């Protein structure tokens, strides 16, 4: 997983509540065998017209928001299904940070598992950040995870909360797997002890293994 330290980027405003996982990535794209490649279908229903052409009114189809790495939106972002395709689609589009007054629980957790920083801030602040975002590439936001603050284009800054453990994981670029692998010695020790004391435990070995 890529580290998340400081992100200076264009932010796209999405002033809507309850943007659900089906909007983020419609169900028909879930039969995929990959987690990469979902970005082109992120927000597909709003992003494309029926004939497949781009809808010029949708924010992520406009410059500079095509290159947005931050989303600023309203309450209950990511509600709906528990599948991980939603954060995969955002990440593949290039989004590394989502700012909203509230998030759906599972989506919130899934973000951290995939290197995306979700930030909860009061609605008035989200609205103010959306005004900044509306200024486009002249008005990039800087998200400093170490200092837990967002620097606004006017020089002011906004502080945010984040769970200490998750902050550590993002800054170090550790996913859960990376974190667990730091306990490799304990895992290997557990396996050795088992093999010694409980040698009856069978392994699955196929004569004609593929």
């Amino acid at each position: 997983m890529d580290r998340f330290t400081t992100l200076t980027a264009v932010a796209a405003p999405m002033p809507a509540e309850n943007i659900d996982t089906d909007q983020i990535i419609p169900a028909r794209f879930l039969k995929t065998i990959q987690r990469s490649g979902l970005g082109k279908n992120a927000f597909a229903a709003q992003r494309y017209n029926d004939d497949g052409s781009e809808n010029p009114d949708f924010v992520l189809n406009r410059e500079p928001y095509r290159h947005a790495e931050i989303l600023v939106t309203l309450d209950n972002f990511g509600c709906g299904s528990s599948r991980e395709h939603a954060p995969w689609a955002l990440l593949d589009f290039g989004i590394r940070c989502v700012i909203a007054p509230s998030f759906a629980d599972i989506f919130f957790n899934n973000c951290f598992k995939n290197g995306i920083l979700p930030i909860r801030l009061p609605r008035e602040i989200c609205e103010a950040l959306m005004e900044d975002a509306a200024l486009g590439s002249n008005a990039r936001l800087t998200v400093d995870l170490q200092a837990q603050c967002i620097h606004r284009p006017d020089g002011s800054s906004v502080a945010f909360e984040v769970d200490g453990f998750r902050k550590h994981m993002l800054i170090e670029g550790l996913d859960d797997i990376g974190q667990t692998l730091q306990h490799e010695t304990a895992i290997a020790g557990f396996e050795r002890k088992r093999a010694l004391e409980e040698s009856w435990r069978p392994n699955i070995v196929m004569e004609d293994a593929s």
Partner: protein
Amino acid sequence: MARTLFDKIWDDHVVERLPDGTCILYIDRHLLHEVTSPQAFEGLRMSGRRLRRPDATVAVVDHNVPTSDRSLPIEEPESRLQIETLEKNVAEFGVPYFRLRSKDQGIVHVVGPEQGISLPGMTIVCGDSHTSTHGAMGALAFGIGTSEVEHVMATQTLLQKPARNMRITVSGQVGPGVTAKDIMLAIIGKIGTAGGTGHVMEFAGDAIRALDMAGRMTLCNMSIEAGARAGLIAPDETTFAYIEGRRFAPKGDDFEKACAYWRTLATDDDAVFDTEVTLDAASIQPSLTWGTSPEDVIGIDGVVPDPAGFSDPARARQVQRMLDYMGLEAGQKIAGTRIDVAFIGSCTNSRIEDLRSAAAIARGRHVAPGVRAMVVPGSGHVKAAAEAEGLDRIFVEAGFEWREAGCSMCLGMNPDRLTAGQRCASTSNRNFEGRQGPGGRTHLCSPAMAAAAAVSGCFVDVREMV
């Protein structure tokens, strides 16, 4: 301190306890199928990680496979791609794999116990919620998401917090014609689909001890439908007799050593459960569902509920909506309701014992006019065993389709689907809207009840047919 079966399995698998109480839990068996594994393999490849224990991992294809002629290529391109992708991945990472056209192929939750891969005291995971089935062996078995599939691949562990302990005691003996499926439907009907939330559910009592392994698997399979993280039944002589001689089970001396360990796992007499539920087996009827949630259960002599009978207006609206979807009238008797399809199969009820109990009803009778009835064995071995006993001929002579192993009409992901409005007596585990195909109407019931409905053309009390 006195411990439950769950506590003992848990304690034996804790590699490390982290400061916040999360445990690194060792996983003994990782089962893979074609739908939830591709992104995990991709993740492994992208991060340059290896699969830690190919010898604790096993793969099979089931969800997407057609259950018709196996010599034909798979028509649906997306299904074919998922299957081919699994085959590429298992070859690349050296995972033991049961090929589509081998006798070993079948539904992952039928194959695991059948091959002696799922054993008592183990931790078993799979990217599939019905992994709870393997709890019948006395194993802690649960479904996981794709990130966790990758986590197990790379580390052979999961980060978990312990669940709460729940015990469901079913005392006494069930009456004739009442099966494990009816017991489980009665349990879900009683505690609801959220009844087991946050708990691991241990089944106990005389009625459970009396069940064969197939019945125990039916019970644990549907513990997830009651909201539990997993279901569990203490391993006993029935379990050991089932395991002995199976392909990947310990043999000879090792088997004796294993049994000695497995005998220590049962819940201590004075262990305390967070939640206890009791049922009287004698009061359980042959049952089925009327609505679109597994908790909407009635006995075969029952009537469809009336929305007006619910004081909570939200529940009343929900019941009305379910009746509309299911095409049922409030207050109508469920017996006599006509069906279009009978489906005998799925990881809930596709083992040889299930097929025997359906065949006992089908023998010498014929599927009613206008009804499509299908029997889908849970694995190639179940199919072969049934054919050796002549069950296939009983079914075919009675007008049932005799098909190849797979998930089939349990979910609308392969060619076996209900069409809109069709009513199905189904031995599967989920009656959600559209689960068996868009607009399909599912009534969950036992194999004997489904067979009885198939030959009668409508739901009937199976007790009148034996």
